[in-house]
């Protein structure tokens, strides 16, 4: 563990190696993931609005639908569902790519050319995912709330004014940054799991498949653990 930490710290210090690679990974891991995040957010917003209406009808004012959609999407479902989807997309992508490089000796070739694989392969992906997950989550939160709003106006007996009243009622700035901080940590964990499982891949296609599966499972587990951790620390 000590050796691993030392190696990771040294890799972080190789700024000239990983910095030029970050932008490319931000596009591949981040920008290309926005459609799937938006898709999930739309349906989350719709279901939340309908569910809130079902729970609150006859018990609480219906404008509370806005409060529930806003709070839940910003603080929990936006970051966590986006994180889970990206654990599949990003985590699997990283593990498969690095795993294939490992079993085809490309990682060894990198080393013989004087590159530390952690500096060249792991750090830029972890940095890119850490920076891009909050951006993707912000998109997802915006779209999720919008979907809840549109659903409330069109399918429920609720006006835009009432929905926005509920949305503003319990809103705190912390609701937003809490979700974004969580998503940054999810990004780091998913990219790290994918990279480490990929580097540990052995054998051939079967080894890469196994590494990919493990990366996705570990990424999802990490999201749940971090979600609980941030709730304990920040709430």
């Amino acid at each position, binding site marked *: 563990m000590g050796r691993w930490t030392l190696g990771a710290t040294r890799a972080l210090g190789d700024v000239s190696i990983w910095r030029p690679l970050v932008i490319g990974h931000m596009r591949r891991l981040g920008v290309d993931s926005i459609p799937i995040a938006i898709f999930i957010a739309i349906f989350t917003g719709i279901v939340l609005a309908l569910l809130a209406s079902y729970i609150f009808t006859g018990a609480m004012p219906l404008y509370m639908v806005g409060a529930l959609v806003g709070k839940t999407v910003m603080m929990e479902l936006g970051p966590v569902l986006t994180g889970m989807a990206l654990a599949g997309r990003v985590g699997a992508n990283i593990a498969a790519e690095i795993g294939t490089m490992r079993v085809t000796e490309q990682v060894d*070739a990198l080393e013989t050319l004087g590159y530390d694989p952690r500096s060249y392969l792991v750090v830029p992906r972890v940095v890119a995912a850490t920076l891009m997950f909050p951006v993707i989550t912000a998109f997802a939160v915006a779209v999720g709330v919008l979907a809840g709003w549109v659903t409330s106006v069109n399918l429920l007996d609720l006006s835009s004014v009432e929905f926005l009243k509920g949305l503003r009622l319990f809103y705190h700035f912390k609701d937003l940054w809490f979700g974004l901080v969580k998503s940054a940590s999810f990004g780091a964990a998913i990219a790290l799991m994918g990279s480490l499982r990929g580097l540990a891949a052995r054998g051939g296609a079967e080894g890469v498949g196994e590494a990919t599966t493990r990366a996705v499972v570990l990424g999802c587990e990490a999201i749940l653990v971090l979600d609980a951790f941030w709730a304990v620390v920040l709430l």
Partner: protein
Amino acid sequence: MIVLDGVCKAFGPRVILDGLTLDVPDGRNTVIIGRSGSGKSVTLRCIVGLLQPDAGAVRVDDVVVGELDRDGLTALRSRIGYVFQFAALFDSMTVAENIALGLTRRGIDAPEIAERVRESLALVDLAGTEAKYPAELSGGMRKRVGIARAVALRPRYILYDEPTTGLDPMTTATMDELMIRTRDLGVTGVVVSHDMKSAFAVGDRIAMLHQGRIHRMGSADEMRASDDPVVRAFIEGRPDHAVAAR
């Protein structure tokens, strides 16, 4: 000079190298022959520090590879080119980018990198392939790009891991010619192979690895004339039971 001194390496209960001792003289091609799984590639990996011996020492230019830290290994590898068995080209990069990657790491400026890429591709008769991706190349072309990537670094040593495996006879001859041409440029070569025709063509010295040690070593002519049953069986490609019967 590369010196392997009593190198031992095992993977779990399987002993691969068992006290391997070998000197690789400068400016010559030393070919290590031996059966599949005899530890030829493991030997190369120990030389370049991709694997650490369990016992014994590998010395390159009087430096013990196993004692080097990360920066020391990087410095060592700047003197060693490695040609992988399946080329190990980065498939997301073009041929030119593959060759340039190691040069960039050494802090060489862009015009010099472009010149070296051009030169090394010309050396392996692949001028004009700069913009191609590895997937667009044949197996033989990929191996030649692998050699170009190693040569572009202007290393003191080049380690070739099975450079002719899976190639047709004409491409094999081209590869042999390249290894000889590279040696004539003053580069010390360590070639791992079980292709005897190629070994005799490129090897100034041939060492037979058997049961984790160098079993016999000599010039191509000495190995051809050897009456050692293990060497003869390998050169003549006789099956196991024929060796056991002698």
